């Protein structure tokens, strides 16, 4: 059993499961974010701040958030271990690299894409998650912490908005390989479901980041 937990196959399955859970998290996160633009003005402020309060206090959400943090940490640690292991497996590289002709670019650069996403996640959590929990942010007219204004102000900055949009493009590439790869690893991408899973994965990898990116773009345009 010990060799089971230390095997590359077990580790990559955990990396796949944590990654796929994070895709589900993204969908939930996106639905929450859409409240920033579906309403406007004070109605949006009230709605979004109530939602933010719910997300930081509801016990069920708290349990889910612990699963999310665990997934992120697990996904990072496991993939770092696996990448280091694989680097050792080829100490001398090729003079001519033929990867471009037999595999997709994103599939060969998941570690780079993931590292860029980690930088984004850290800055993103500092801007909003940290501020909501421990930051000195003001209250809205209803007396709730005013995360809405923090968000709207953040995206008045073109560079912050551009960084967010760039990170969503990175996310799109990461998902374009990650979702299909996850299903392959956990064994669901059978020959019968190969095509629907691959098509859905590509559709998700375009739709989720585009929808995420549209929000700061709209907030920035509204601020002009």
């Amino acid at each position, binding site marked *: 059993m010990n060799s089971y937990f230390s095997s590359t196959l077990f580790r990559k399955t955990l990396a796949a499961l944590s990654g796929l859970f994070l895709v589900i998290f993204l969908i939930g996160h996106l639905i929450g974010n859409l409240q920033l633009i579906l309403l406007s003005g004070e109605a949006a402020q009230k709605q979004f701040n109530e939602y933010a309060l719910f997300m930081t206090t509801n016990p069920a959400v708290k349990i889910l958030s612990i699963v999310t943090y665990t997934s992120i940490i697990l996904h990072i640690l496991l993939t770092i271990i696996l990448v280091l292991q694989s680097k050792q497996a080829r100490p001398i590289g090729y003079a001519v690299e033929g990867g471009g002709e*037999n595999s997709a670019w994103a599939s060969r650069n998941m570690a780079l894409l993931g590292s860029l996403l980690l930088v984004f996640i850290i800055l993103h959590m500092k801007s909003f998650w940290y501020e909501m929990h421990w930051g000195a942010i003001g209250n809205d007219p209803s007396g709730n912490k005013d995360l809405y204004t923090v968000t709207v102000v953040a995206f008045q900055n073109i560079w912050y908005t551009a960084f967010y949009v760039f990170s969503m493009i990175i996310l799109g590439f990461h998902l374009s390989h990650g979702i299909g790869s996850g299903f392959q690893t956990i064994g669901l991408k059978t020959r019968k479901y190969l095509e629907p899973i691959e098509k859905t994965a590509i559709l998700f990898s375009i739709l989720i980041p585009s929808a995420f990116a549209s929000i700061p773009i709209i907030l920035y345009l509204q601020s002009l």
Partner: protein
Amino acid sequence: MADLNLTLKIWRQDGPTEPGGFKTYDISDLNTHMSFLEMLDVLNENLVNSGDEPVAFDHDCREGICGMCSMVINGRPHGPLEGTTTCQLHMRHFNDGDTVTIEPWRAKPFPVLKDLIVDRTPFDRIIQAGGFVSVNTGSAPDGNAIPIGKDISDDAFDAAACIGCGACVAACKNASANLFTAAKISQLALLPQGQTERVERVIGMVKQMDEEGFGHCTNTGACEAECPKEISVDYIRKMNWEFHSANVKG
């Protein structure tokens, strides 16, 4: 039949512990109907005639079924054609004046023995770790005594087409041996004859694969794209299932 002139950049290394490097050779007036290995034969004849050491490369059947002719040609294991071993690659697929870079398989478990020859015994040890298959000895069994569905026997046969050449490892950016190991595991796991030792087989082979120091699989699909027998990565998916269920069942 136009004649062909090429510049070859070939990895030369005297032994496993010796440092290696590329040497450049010009070769001219090649017949385009030659196989890639025959082109190397011509080069070696020239080298021998001029008193130089010929290039060491693995080869055996020269009809695409033994898996010996391992070399990476311009970054592609067995060269640019799909579903082809080096011996079945012909010089008509190259253009006059091309520079062709030839390297050995690159993986820590496959150390270079000399020039383009690598040691692939880790594959033998993975096979050995799978143990034996229980069969009745004695006279040859009657054909079709054990009924097996056509779809299952086709699937097992597709896995069994693996010639153990190592192109999957050479192509994989992680130098992973997942496709090879998965093909060998699936071939027996699919058939009734492979059921008795099914659990020990997958656990033993995956353990050995990891111990040999191959990298992990990140599903880039490069192995399937470069496999001369076009083995599907679906067998890797099957191996994952097989491995988890074997460990859970114990």
